[in-house]
């Protein structure tokens, strides 16, 4: 049983594609195997004949356990059969000839046994014996690269640079160099080929003052989720989560605070929403994150983009580190940014590089709506107005100020449960603002 997912410890044969006695070529699928992650195709590394199936459909085998014997037609396998029977089928060497073809195409299988090294380069070398120093280097270097290429894309520097300059996704290319190295001519031929709808790519902002971040490698599972869902709904597979929030305590808090403030510094409901969202974000790193294809970028502070309507449309100035700022400070900043936005005086660093956004149409009488994610952010909150609404509390119908909030989530990063947990924190804090002190 080969390793077909990074974390699998055993695999269940879903079905054998080849039957005993069937011959196959290299890269042909031999069987489908259910791993802890998905059903993977197990493909042949070299051609041969499937002589004996040891684990049938539905049976489970540990990593390295013999599941079949392959070889040449008519080969005597009685000794092997005896051996696998006597040691419980553990680690019969024949089986290491099969590997995870399905995965290796996209990212190289984790424990993929390497095929024999490619033939030593130029056959045109003189037939006379070579002095030691010259030919030594080539095969050694090749085998080194072999062992180092697991899961890595090999790209020559100029090819990487040309691809980046031309917005070509390197993963869409097939390398024609040694060990599949993507070289200049591969990029050149891709440039000549008609464009075939490249996957959307977003350059992360590097605005000074923007949140620091760390990039973590995207897991295979995340990548599959990302590509499948994106295929289905467009570049950003979005789903929506709606929550009802009782705003009475938050409104009371606002009243208390505003009683101490001068008219021009009073805070709005939205200022509270921004602060609470920011505080919730730092507790839920996956929501305060950005999908970057091979990595997920986790931001350390919550830089909140606040949608502001202006004559030509809208713009989202950014409140940096809103999780660290007080209501009044946030309020003052938003007022200042909104004024600048309306006067078209916003500097680029003031409206780019948010880690999350909030759009509030409550003051325009909207009860509930959905907002569109502003990439590369992963989420946006659509905030409706807080309106007196009859609700049932302890079996009684009572009136509470209810605010509906809908979060649009980028499913490449945020799963339903992840988003729901974030909204839970957000709701709890708004309903019991004292929790903000915890």
């Amino acid at each position: 049983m080969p390793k077909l997912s990074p974390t699998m410890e055993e695999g269940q044969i879903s079905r054998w594609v080849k039957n005993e006695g069937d011959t196959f070529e290299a890269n042909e699928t031999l069987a489908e195997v259910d791993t802890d992650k998905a059903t993977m195709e197990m493909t042949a590394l070299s051609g041969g004949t499937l002589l004996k199936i040891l684990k049938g459909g539905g049976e489970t085998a540990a990593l390295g356990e013999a599941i079949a014997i392959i070889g040449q037609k008519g080969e005597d396998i009685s000794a092997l059969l005896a051996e696998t029977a006597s040691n419980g089928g553990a680690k019969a060497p024949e089986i290491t000839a099969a590997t995870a073809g399905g995965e290796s195409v996209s990212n190289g299988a984790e424990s993929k046994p390497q095929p024999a090294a490619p033939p030593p380069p130029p056959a045109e070398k003189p037939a006379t014996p070579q002095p030691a120093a010259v030919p030594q280097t080539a095969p050694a270097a090749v085998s080194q690269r072999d062992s180092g290429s697991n899961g890595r894309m090999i790209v020559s520097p100029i090819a990487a640079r040309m691809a980046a300059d031309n917005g070509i996704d390197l993963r869409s290319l097939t390398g024609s160099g040694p060990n599949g190295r993507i070289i200049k001519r591969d990029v050149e031929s891709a440039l000549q080929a008609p464009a075939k709808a490249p996957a959307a790519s977003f350059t992360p902002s590097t605005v000074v003052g923007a949140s620091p971040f760390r990039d973590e490698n995207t897991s295979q599972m995340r990548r599959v989720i990302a590509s499948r869902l994106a295929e289905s709904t467009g570049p950003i597979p979005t789903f929506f989560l709606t929550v009802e929030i009782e705003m009475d305590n938050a409104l009371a808090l606002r009243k208390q605070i505003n009683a101490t403030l001068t008219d021009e510094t009073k805070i709005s409901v939205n200022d509270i929403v921004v602060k609470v969202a920011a505080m919730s974000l730092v507790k839920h790193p996956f929501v305060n994150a950005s999908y970057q294809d091979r990595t997920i970028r986790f931001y350390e502070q919550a830089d909140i983009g606040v949608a502001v309507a202006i004559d030509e449309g809208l713009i989202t100035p950014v409140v940096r580190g809103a999780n660290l700022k007080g209501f009044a400070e946030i309020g003052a900043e938003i007022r200042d940014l909104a004024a600048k936005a309306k006067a078209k005086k916003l500097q680029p660093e003031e409206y780019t590089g948010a880690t999350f956004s909030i759009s509030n149409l409550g003051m325009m009488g909207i009860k509930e709506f959905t907002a569109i994610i502003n990439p590369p952010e992963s989420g946006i909150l659509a905030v409706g107005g807080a309106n007196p609404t009859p609700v049932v509390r302890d079996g009684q119908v009572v009136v509470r100020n209810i605010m509906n909030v809908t979060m649009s989530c980028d499913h490449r990063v945020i799963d339903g449960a992840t988003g729901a947990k974030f909204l839970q924190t957000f709701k709890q804090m708004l309903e019991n603002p004292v929790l903000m002190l915890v």
Partner: protein
Amino acid sequence: MAVLTIRDALNQALREEILRDENVFVMGEEVAEYDGAYKVTRGLWKEFGNKRVVDTPITELGFASIGVGAAMAGLRPVIEFMTWNFSILAADQIINHAAKMLYMSGGQFPVPIVFRGPNGSAYQVSSQHSQALEAFYANFPGLKVVMPSTAADAKGLLKSSIRDNNPVIFMEQERMYGIKGEVPEDEDFTIPLGVAEVKREGTDCTIVARSMTVPLALQAAEQIQKDFDVSVEVIDPRTIKPLDIDTIINSVKKTNRLVIAEESHSFASVAAEVTYQVMDGAFDYLDAPIKRLSTAETPMPYAKNLEQLALPSVEKIVAAVKEVCYL
């Protein structure tokens, strides 16, 4: 322009500089009455006499020392080593004295001296007489290292070396003394030290070669052009130190591929240095790992067939270019 051998171009340079500056003199084993072991100094003793062309005993350390002292006292000696292999005996004078005197005297004593002679392999002269020592000398601050590959370069660079106020290691190649080329007749024709020359323009691959590997690289380039329609650029740095790395980097930025051919051994060689500097200056432009061809890591064999196999060749250069071009 006159067509001269490298040997005669060097002779012309020496003669012109002896005539031009009374402080210039030539010294070494057999340079005077015998006209030089390789006839580079032919006729000079007859024309200029004992004062300007001085025969020495077989004492490399001794006459190198006299040369350094003479240079400190204001003369401009041109010291011939019968081959650079023998300079190893005088290495203390070259490295510890010539190279460091200006620095250690606080700028009081420049050492305007040229050490010259053939470097690298010859024809079956075996292990002790076939060494290419440029990387060794280029490693020491205070020395310039010059390696011409054509008659014109030989003349222009030797004249610049003699006029230079620093010690210059001037390395010729015994196999190349008879190679002919056009040489400007102007007595003030010089080639500045530290300037590379593109010997052949190309777009797909750069070969950096020096001394004996330059003609090999040019031949390889023609063959590759013919067989594969791949356009190879050949660059001769001409001066190893100071090295004109900009010309090389600009070429690699254009071609994205680099092969370096040299006659020295590979470990810590000039090719290793060029490789580092190109990686440093043009990493993002490379399409393939840089490939170098050096002499095999073995003392030079005496046997003719083994000697040929140990040395860089047109075939090996062609194979290396094909490899970096993914052909």
